[in-house]
């Protein structure tokens, strides 16, 4: 029983990371209608940006984090404006392939700049805090708390600000948004800013939980996409539910199967949801 609760706790931590990635994937799909395969590598890039700020330059972590997030958002907007924008009217499959290419470019750049080996934000072992028989690392509190703050911030942005409402309106009905006077290109830029910030946060949290590696984001991309689709792609609120379902399932599955098959668990859930409830677990998209 204790072991199960422990794994659920780890699942919430992993779920928080996956959620932040899945929100970006879902937002981008909702606005631009394509699967952004470079999202995992944007997470990686964000994590390395924080490494530069925190380790290389020596900024305090609370400052390195937002700086890295802003830099990742800038890169996301730059990629969109230089590459994806030219393909806006193309077939979605062309955008998907170009995103795949962008994933390879980002990953290779990370490898060229920072090398292929593991890096860490802080060396040494962090002793877990014990609560009864449960063990929780201090970083886990920061990860879950940070994800919570970002998700609440996103919610307030989407429901309270004019740009957030325009973003939801455009995801809902792009023609009607245009007719209402929404400058859709401006919404696209804001979408990339948010997706970039969320991806960087996910990458930084993932690196805090494990370590930095050029393929860290690519490896978790399947789980991120599974979460976005399980939650109903194009719906950022679904991504939260999807992220938790995938994160907790992956961790709890290690009770029964070899941990190296974790990714297979998210794939199995993904396939099951696509067969039985293709619109995602959070209501139906109309």
């Amino acid at each position, binding site marked *: 029983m204790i072991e199960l609760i422990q794994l659920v706790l780890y699942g919430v931590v992993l779920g928080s990371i996956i959620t932040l990635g899945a929100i970006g994937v879902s937002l981008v799909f909702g606005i631009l209608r394509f699967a952004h395969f470079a999202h995992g590598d944007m997470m990686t890039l964000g994590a390395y940006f924080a490494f530069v700020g925190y380790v290389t330059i020596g900024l305090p972590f609370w400052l390195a984090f937002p700086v890295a997030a802003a830099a990742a958002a800038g890169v996301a907007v730059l990629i969109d404006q230089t590459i994806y924008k030219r393909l806006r009217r193309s077939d979605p499959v062309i955008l998907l392939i170009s995103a795949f290419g962008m994933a390879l470019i980002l990953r290779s750049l990370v490898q060229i700049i920072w090398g292929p080996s593991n890096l860490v934000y802080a060396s040494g072992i962090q002793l877990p805090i014990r609560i009864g028989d449960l063990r929780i690392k201090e970083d886990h509190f920061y990860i879950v708390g940070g994800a919570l703050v970002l998700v609440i911030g996103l919610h307030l942005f989407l429901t309270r600000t*004019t740009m957030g*409402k*325009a973003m*939801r*309106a455009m*995801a*809902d*009905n792009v*023609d*009607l*948004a*245009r*007719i*209402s*006077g*929404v*400058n*859709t290109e401006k919404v696209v830029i804001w979408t990339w800013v948010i997706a970039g910030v969320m991806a960087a946060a996910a990458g930084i949290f993932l690196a805090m939980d494990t370590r930095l590696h050029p393929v860290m984001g690519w490896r978790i991309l399947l789980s991120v996409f599974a979460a976005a689709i399980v939650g109903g792609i194009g719906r950022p609120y679904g991504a939260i539910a999807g992220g938790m379902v995938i994160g907790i399932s992956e961790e709890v599955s290690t009770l029964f199967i070899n941990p190296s098959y974790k990714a297979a668990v998210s794939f199995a859930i993904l396939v099951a949801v696509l067969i039985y409830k293709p619109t995602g677990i959070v209501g139906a998209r*109309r």
Partner: protein
Amino acid sequence: MSLLAIEDLYGGYGGADILSGVRLTVDPGEIVVIIGPNGAGKSTAMKSVFGLITVRQGRITFDGKDITRLPTQQIVRHGICYVPQTNNVFTSLTVHENLEMGAYVRRDNYAGQFDKVYDLFPPLRERRNRPAGHLSGGQRQMVAMGRALMMEPRLLLVDEPTAGLAPLFIDQIFQIVKDVNRLGIAVLMVEQNAKKALAIAHRGYVLTLGRNRHEDTGPNLLADREVAEMFLGG
């Protein structure tokens, strides 16, 4: 001077022209109805005003300003609002948020306009926090019109507002159009339900094959025998 003037317009959706020389004007405060058989280019003519088709030749002016080929998102700033026939509400947004989107480009204080719209459509007031996708067809049409009215436009374009609605709602919609017009807003409407539409219209146009066929006052078109045989069911 006309509020809206479409002059000798040719264009379509990139392929062959759907409109082959349409001429149309709307004066301030008028209700103008476009009728005609399927494929006559009625909706296309309306979309041309909002930059939703490729205009090959011709000119569209609003209040004397040339708005031909302006990007869609800028047209609304001139004081024209458009209610499409289908998909005309944001289904996942609440009724109130739909109205807010209607006022998206307004930078002045428009808080009072919500009350005006809710007064015009009382059923919406009690459903203001419901997603628009959960409403009935007639109520959605109210949301769609309400969204457009949030701009306090000078001209409202309405594309087949009664399509797919139960007969009970059809009269209600035409009443709403009249009420909107009474606020001083000119209305250009495409409508299948020609008899009822002409009955509330100041003027009407009959389009066939992307061209003007007839143009007259609403009562005269209703009385015209050829029009009656073609569109009004004898």
